[in-house]
């Protein structure tokens, strides 16, 4: 296993996995605690539509997928804030619309699209240095916004109290939505659209089961999200199985262990 880490593509895979695992889990605690777990799936499909549009327009998929997914995420937030529809309905509508657009864009493109398949199921071993740079930039952006954690946590705890205390709750909702979309887009190549929601939801859910405070839940989720990549990648290498699948199954195993350990 250690000699595998000498290989540049394995090093990139590991770094990408750690970054994606940590970032998705950090935002995942807000998503899970705000009961928006479905959002990861919805935005992953928005990323799919963006990638398909990029391929159709013969552009780098990432640069089309980023504004597309961020736009969809902001639109979901707008509908959630403005209409009497429940959150899962608002997300479900955009989920379906994005999937339909993705299929349409794919059908308009002539010939086989191997890139699209890579995005659908993830291909952590084909992460390029450019992908890593983009992930690094997103990670820096999220790190720069760490001082907003107390505000996000407060609004997650009780939105009305945060509003009564004049916190900019609405602005932060949109900021968080844009950031989640960014993280989803840069993660889908690694994780795959199909498995993206797991990276957001499972580490946060494990941390929730084992934590007494929201701070501990946040730290725990980031730790679990990043750490689960190591045994996952090792299993993928040793047993020659898809890496995204191996990582998510590792997280699922941790979840079952946490469920057994939980002390309510």
């Amino acid at each position, binding site marked *: 296993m250690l000699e595998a880490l000498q290989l540049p593509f394995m090093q990139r895979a590991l770094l990408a996995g750690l970054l994606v695992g940590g970032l998705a889990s950090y935002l995942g605690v807000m998503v899970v*605690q705000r009961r928006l777990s479905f959002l990861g799936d919805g935005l992953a499909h928005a990323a799919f539509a963006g990638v398909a549009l990029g391929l159709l327009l013969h552009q780098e998929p990432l640069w089309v997928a980023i504004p597309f997914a961020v736009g969809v995420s902001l639109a979901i937030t707008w509908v959630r804030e*403005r209409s009497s529809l429940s959150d899962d309905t608002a997300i479900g509508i955009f989920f379906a619309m994005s999937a339909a657009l993705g299929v349409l864009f794919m059908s308009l493109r002539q010939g086989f699209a191997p890139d699209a398949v890579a995005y659908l199921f993830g291909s952590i071993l084909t992460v390029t240095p450019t992908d890593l740079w983009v992930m690094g930039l997103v990670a820096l952006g999220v790190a720069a916004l760490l001082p907003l954690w*107390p505000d996000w946590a*407060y609004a997650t705890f009780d939105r009305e109290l945060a509003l009564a205390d004049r916190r900019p709750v609405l602005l932060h909702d949109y900021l968080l939505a844009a950031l989640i979309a960014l993280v989803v887009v840069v993660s889908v190549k690694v994780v795959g659209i199909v498995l993206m929601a797991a990276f957001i939801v499972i580490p946060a859910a494990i941390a*929730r089961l084992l934590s*007494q*405070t*929201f701070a501990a*839940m946040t730290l725990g989720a980031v730790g679990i999200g990043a750490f689960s990549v190591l045994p996952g990648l090792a299993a993928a290498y040793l047993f020659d199985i898809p890496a995204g699948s191996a990582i998510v199954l590792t997280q699922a195993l941790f979840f079952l262990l946490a469920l057994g350990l939980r002390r309510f």
Partner: protein
Amino acid sequence: MTAAAVEMKGYSVRFGDFRALQEVNLTVPQGAFVAIVGPNGAGKSTLLKALLGLERGSLRDGPTQVSGTVRVMGLPPRQVPPGWVGYVPQVKGFDRSFPALALEVVVSGLRRRWPFLITAPERKKAEEMLDRVGALALANRRLGRLSGGELQRVYLARSLIREPRLLLLDEPATGVDVVGEADLYRHLEAYQAERGATILMITHDWEAAQHHASAVLVLNRRVVGYGPPERVLCHECLSQAFGHVGHEHGLVLKGD
């Protein structure tokens, strides 16, 4: 001249087609203890939210139309320093799945943000507040493990920690047993005596309103009655707000 704690003039709120409050005129002097009573849907919570500057509510309710004026300590609500106002929301709307300790909830009242780490002075102050409301033993208890009455004490400590001049409570006695309710009023009266604070409290307990409040506001979208409990809690006033009332509703009026 000292500004009134609360002053509303011709204040109306409409959510879409629904008129939540109509032409409310109200002056609450500083240091008053006002119990707000009225049937469900009478606009009681909307009135408290107006004082917090949250009258627009959720945009999900449709377009909100507001007219008239509100002043809190002489200022428009959104210009009032948040530290001046303590708010105890209804416990029933609270998400118990949020991982938090009672102490963190109290500290959030001081910081107006959620604490990642609690400093020693913050811990000391929060423990003092919990002690004050007889809930020091709950400091390190998880929220999901608190009963309705215990949660209410924690929320009260959370609002008192900022030493507010105006305390707004939305049905604080809901889910609290008789002893807990008596304690709640004792703590509120002690704080008021110490700080000269103004208290506005929504309650369905007319008897408690009769005994503890200096004034009662009977609301049914409009002000049906406002004044000393013995004058306002009369059959005529309450019948106007609620329809028929009598002994079966728990109201034993003085002189009955």
